[in-house]
C-alpha cells in the first residue's frame, strides 16, 4: 500500500495529534516488530557491509583521507548527497544502521511534520524499518 504508515503505539500517538489535513488518506498499521540489537551484531553487520556504487567508494575514500580530522569529516558528511547512490547500497547502509537508530529518527521526524511530503518521507522510513525488524526478528 502506497499510503501506509507502520508506526509503533507511541508513534501513533504523535501521528494522531497531527492536523486532520495531514493525516487524511493515510492508513496506519501498528508496527509490532521488535529487536534487541547488540554491539556484537551491529559490529558484524558492519563487517558484512558491501557497497558497490563508485560514488560510495569515493565517499569512503574521502572519509579515510580526513585521517580522523573531525571538522573535515563533519564537513564531508554535511556535503553528502545520496541522490545518485544505487538502491542496493542504500539498502546496505540501512542494514548496517539497524532498526533502533531508524526508530529514533522516525520519532524525531514525526515531531517535526509540517507537510504531506514529510509524511511521505516517514512512510518510506517506516517501510524500511518494518523490513529490517522482520528480517532481524525472525532469523
Amino acid at each position, binding site marked *: 500500500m*502506497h499510503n501506509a504508515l507502520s508506526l509503533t503505539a507511541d508513534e501513533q500517538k504523535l501521528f494522531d495529534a497531527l492536523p486532520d489535513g495531514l493525516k487524511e488518506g493515510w492508513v496506519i498499521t501498528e508496527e509490532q516488530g521488535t529487536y534487541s540489537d547488540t554491539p556484537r551484531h551491529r559490529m*558484524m553487520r558492519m563487517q558484512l557491509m558491501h557497497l558497490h556504487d563508485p560514488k560510495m567508494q569515493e565517499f569512503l575514500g*574521502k572519509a579515510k583521507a580526513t585521517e580522523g580530522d*573531525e571538522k573535515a569529516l563533519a564537513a564531508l558528511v554535511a556535503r553528502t548527497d*545520496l541522490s545518485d547512490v544505487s538502491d542496493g547500497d542504500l539498502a546496505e547502509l540501512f542494514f548496517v544502521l539497524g532498526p533502533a537508530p531508524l526508530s529514533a529518527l522516525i520519532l524525531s521526524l514525526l515531531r517535526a511534520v509540517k507537510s504531506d511530503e514529510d509524511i*511521505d518521507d516517514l512512510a518510506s522510513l517506516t517501510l524500511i524499518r518494518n523490513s529490517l525488524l522482520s528480517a*532481524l526478528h525472525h532469523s
Partner: protein
Amino acid sequence: MSPETTLDPVTGPSGDETKIEAPQSFIPTPERLSQYLEMNIAEVDAALRSVEGRATLYSRIVEHEEDLRQLYPDFNSNGLREQLDLIGDVLRQKEAYMKDVSSPEKKGLFRRAWDRVKGFAKRHPIVTALLAIAGIAAAVAGGFYLTGNWELLLTSTGLSKVFGSVDAAGEMITPTPYTPMAPGAGELQVPVPADPIPGAEIPI
C-alpha cells in the same frame, strides 16, 4: 606469510596511502575465510549458514591456530565458535532483509522509498548524515576511535541531539565502544596475506 604489524595501508580514491593504526583482530568474515582457507566464497558462505558447515570451518581454522596467532596475537579459538555462529546469524538476517526489499510484491513500494531517501539531503539532512556515518563506521571506524574524534562527529552533525546524548548516539550507531574495528574490516578491506594458512589447501 609474515606476521603483520599494527599498521596497515589503505588506499584513498586518488591512490594515496593513509596509515591507520589499530590493533589486529581476527574476524572470520566470508571473504577472509575464503582467502585464508583457499575456499570458494560461495562455499564459505553456505558453510557459515549451517551448524555442520560452521563446525567444519571451525576445525579447519583451529588446525592453523598457531599460524593465525602469528598474524593476530589476540586470536583465541575459544571465542571462534561464537563468532562463527554470530556471522551465520547475521548472514541469515541480511539475506532475509535483502530478499524482502527486492521481492517482486514490494518492488514498487521500495522503489518509491529509495527515491524518497535519495532526496533527504535537502529535506532531512540528518537522515543522510546518519546513513553516511553508518557507512564510515563500517568502513573506517577504527581510525576515528583511536583519534577520539567519533564523539565530536556525532555532536557536530547534530545526531547526538536526535538520540538524546552523545553516548546514546554512540551506542546506537558505532561499533562496540572503544573496541576499534580491525583495519581491513568492512568495505575498504586491507588485503589479506597473499599466502593462505600453510596446509589450508588440504581439502575438508
